[in-house]
Every structure is written in C-alpha cells, then in structure tokens.
C-alpha cells in the first residue's frame, strides 16, 4: 500500500539552528500539507502546497518557515532559526485532489518527525 514517508523520525537541534524536515508524498498525489502537533495538543495546520506554490497557510506559518518541492518526489519544510516552542511532531500529508474540488478527499499522513529544540 502506498504511504507517505518522513525523515528523520527524530531530530534534535539547538535553538537558533536551521532544520529541514523531509517528506516523500504518495507518487500520484498533487496536494501536500504540513501539520504539527505539540505534545498533548491538537494537530495544527501549517501549510498546503500545490503546483509548486503555497495554497494556504496558517498564522503559525510565519517567515521562519518555508516549504519546497525540490524535485519530483520530495517535499520539505524548513525552519530557519528554531525556537524552543518549535518542538513538536511534524506531520506531512498528501491527497489526490484538493479537498474542496471533489467534495472532500482523504489525506494520507506520514508517521511524523519529532523535532526537539534544546
């Protein structure tokens, strides 16, 4: 069964350092998402991406964050200068089509990258 893969599974970084979280979405999917989940809290939307550009972003997704699809398979989230409060599980997701166009479609999530900022 196709799946979304994320690497690394766990990353520890020092405050102020840049990190890049990597995702390989399902191959025929067109829409990509990043979510984060701070320990014990809800899954929060960060950004959606389609056709090599950001479709939507939340208020969390400030100038410290950026996303990129550097090639035909990878989808990355970069945090430029990490803060302690960036410590969370980061989930990548992909879907075949945009949620609204088909009246809703399921998103497939990766297993997450646990980011710890020290």
């Amino acid at each position, binding site marked *: 069964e196709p799946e979304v893969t994320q690497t690394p599974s766990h990353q520890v970084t020092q405050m102020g350092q840049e990190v890049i979280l990597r995702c390989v979405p399902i191959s025929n999917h067109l829409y990509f998402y990043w979510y984060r989940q701070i320990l014990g809290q809800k899954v929060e939307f960060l950004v*959606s991406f389609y056709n090599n550009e950001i479709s939507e972003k939340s208020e969390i997704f400030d100038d410290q964050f950026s996303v990129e699809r550097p090639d035909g398979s990878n989808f990355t989230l970069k945090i430029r200068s990490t803060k302690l409060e960036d410590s969370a599980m980061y989930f990548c997701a992909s879907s075949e089509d945009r949620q609204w166009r088909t009246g809703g479609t399921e998103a497939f999530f990766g297993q997450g990258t646990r980011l710890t900022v020290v």
Partner: protein
Amino acid sequence: SQKIEQNSEALNIQEGKTATLTCNYTNYSPAYLQWYRQDPGRGPVFLLLIRENEKEKRKERLKVTFDTTLKQSLFHITASQPADSATYLCALDVNNDMRFGAGTRLTVKP
C-alpha cells in the same frame, strides 16, 4: 471566533458497548467533515468522510452522522473492542484545507 470542539477529552467504555464521540463546530460552514484515528506517536489515519448533504455514513462497525443545523457530527463505534482504543479526531474543511479538533481519547476496557 471559529471553533471545533470535541467535547470529551477522554471516554472509557466496556468492550462490546457502543462508543459515541461528538464533534461540534461554530462559525464554520463546512462542505464536509472527516474522522481520523490517531495512535500514540503516529500520524492520523483516515476513517470516514461525510458531506453536508449526507445525514449518515457507515463503514463496518463505524457510523458517522452530520447535522448542519446543530453544527454537530456524531461518531459511533459499535461492538467496541480494546483494539479500538485510540484518539479520534474530527476534521473540517476550512478555506479548503482540513482543520482538526483536539480529539477524544477512547479507551475500551476488556
């Protein structure tokens, strides 16, 4: 302000009983609503989607209802099993992307 509320942080039931989880929302008009399951340390897994023009959807032991007047969805697991123990998340489309509620942690005791 817009809110998605799952009104039980935790729900404990006995094996074999029906679990009913609630998702309420305010200041949204979603075209559809989804339910996901999340196990500790794992990503959410899609379970069911229900559209605004559908009252009810079923899949095996799962049933979802969607009442756009009450702004509420109910998620039922019948004949619950210990393996159903997990956190269940509802998600709404907001500006064409999914937003999640905080989840309800279900524990099914043998």
